[in-house]
């Protein structure tokens, strides 16, 4: 059972992740499942990447977004549960967060939305539907009178 003092971290061997403009993109390298989170979700992921405790994450979330402590704690715990179920994070033994500049706070607290983990499970199925087609390099295809460009 997680406590608020628990520190977490991404499972670095199994997961590739990047945060860009506050959006977290995550890939499970074992099964190819793709995830994304933005806004509050992206922020929580950044806190996890820095090995902050749940308590530190809740506090930082309240400083950044217009959200009550009760709501922030409930949503952080729910999201963390989901990330654990998806095998994207694990408990960290570190006693303090990763050293580095703190995440900058906006001048005013931002409107809050429920952090959501977008999961895309069927990439393999969709890839199988329309694989690349070989051998087209020498096929010409023009309408009469048209000169194609960009080929």
């Amino acid at each position: 059972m997680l406590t608020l003092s628990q520190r977490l971290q991404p499972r670095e061997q199994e997961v590739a992740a990047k945060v860009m403009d506050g959006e977290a993109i995550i890939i499970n390298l074992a099964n190819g499942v793709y995830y994304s989170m933005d806004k509050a979700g992206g922020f929580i992921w950044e806190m996890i990447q820095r090995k902050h405790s749940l308590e530190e994450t809740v506090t930082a979330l309240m400083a950044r977004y217009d959200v009550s402590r009760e709501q922030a704690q409930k949503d952080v715990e729910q999201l963390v549960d989901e990330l654990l179920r998806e095998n994207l994070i694990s408990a960290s033994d570190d006693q303090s967060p990763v050293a580095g500049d703190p995440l900058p706070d906006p001048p005013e607290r931002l409107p809050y939305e429920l952090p959501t983990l977008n999961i895309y499970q069927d990439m393999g199925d969709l890839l199988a539907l329309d694989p690349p087609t070989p051998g087209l390099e020498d096929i010409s295809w023009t309408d009469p009178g048209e000169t194609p460009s960009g080929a």
Partner: protein
Amino acid sequence: MRLLVWQEQFWPQIGGIEVLATKLFSSLRQRGYEISVVTRQDRLDLPKQGQYQGVAIYRYPIWAAITRRDIDQIVEIRRHIKELKRAFQPDLIHNNGLGPSALFQLDTVDAHVVPSLVTLHTTLKSVIPMRVRQDALFKRTLLAANWVTCVSTAVLDEARQLVPEIRLRSSVTYNGLDFSAPPPAPLPFNVPRILCLGRLIRDKGFDLALRAFASLADHMPGLRLVIAGDGPARSSLEDLAVELGLQDSVEFLGWVSPDNVPALMNSATLVVMPSRREGLPGVALEAALMARPVVATTVGGVPEVVLHHKTGLLVAQDDQEALAEAILFLLTHPATATAFGQAARRRAQEVFSFERYVDAYDALYQRILVRSGRSPKNLRVNPPALT
């Protein structure tokens, strides 16, 4: 109207959807549309940007990025697509087909929020579980769309079963045929040729065509089977032809330019489509255009194009014997085969005209904008030319 189209593959890739899309977009441009296409850069020799008939093309290595699970490339593609959306400022986004590229449309939707349309071109039962998870890209894309249109009633029925929430915002839009092709030639019964045309993948069922042909070849020594197209199943099909002793009577043409398909059709006595999965079969439409009778399986939208005993013959999926019988019947009943082909052409002119097809999409785009609270009068009438 500025239209941003998501399409798994586009010019110069050859396929039914790709060829039809270029014709649709060309016609829409004549009606004042400004169109950009986001597509996969499956061939690295193709440039990242180009254009065809005034349509701007943006290619991204989506297949490679997803299959290699390359997070850096995925993030880079997302960044570029967000920039494209912000720069192009589309009035509407059209997912023309649904594949892995849709991930990049759905995940960048906040970059420029506009209504979206999804066109489904094929049935999916063989690849998508009937109980679709909430977190499936397929379902999420359909749920996020303002409207879903399908190329046949079969595809629509299945889509509504998989995602019932789209019931009231979905429809059928039949593909169209360009009737500017050369006129059909008489069916050649003196040198009978069976034609299979399409991507060489298991779903097209050309292995069944080979097996059915093998049972006929001994009885009709001059009969030939032509398989036009390419794909991952080619070598296994060629091996099967050898295994069945057909190497002298079966010809593998490889890819055929869309410009040459009418002439190819004119050389055929009949067209065989033993497909295991189809949305609205473009090859059957091409065959109808050239007054060729079709022997096909009753899958997906095939029965909406091929009318049994009127424009062709239908057999059950994977029924090799019935396939061979149907082919033999048409080859030995030239008057019936000719009548079927001519009826197919007449019906195609009524039901699958190209003008009707362009009108349908033009009206659908406008309707989606109105339903989403955007009035066409607010749109730029004379969009700036692409530079």
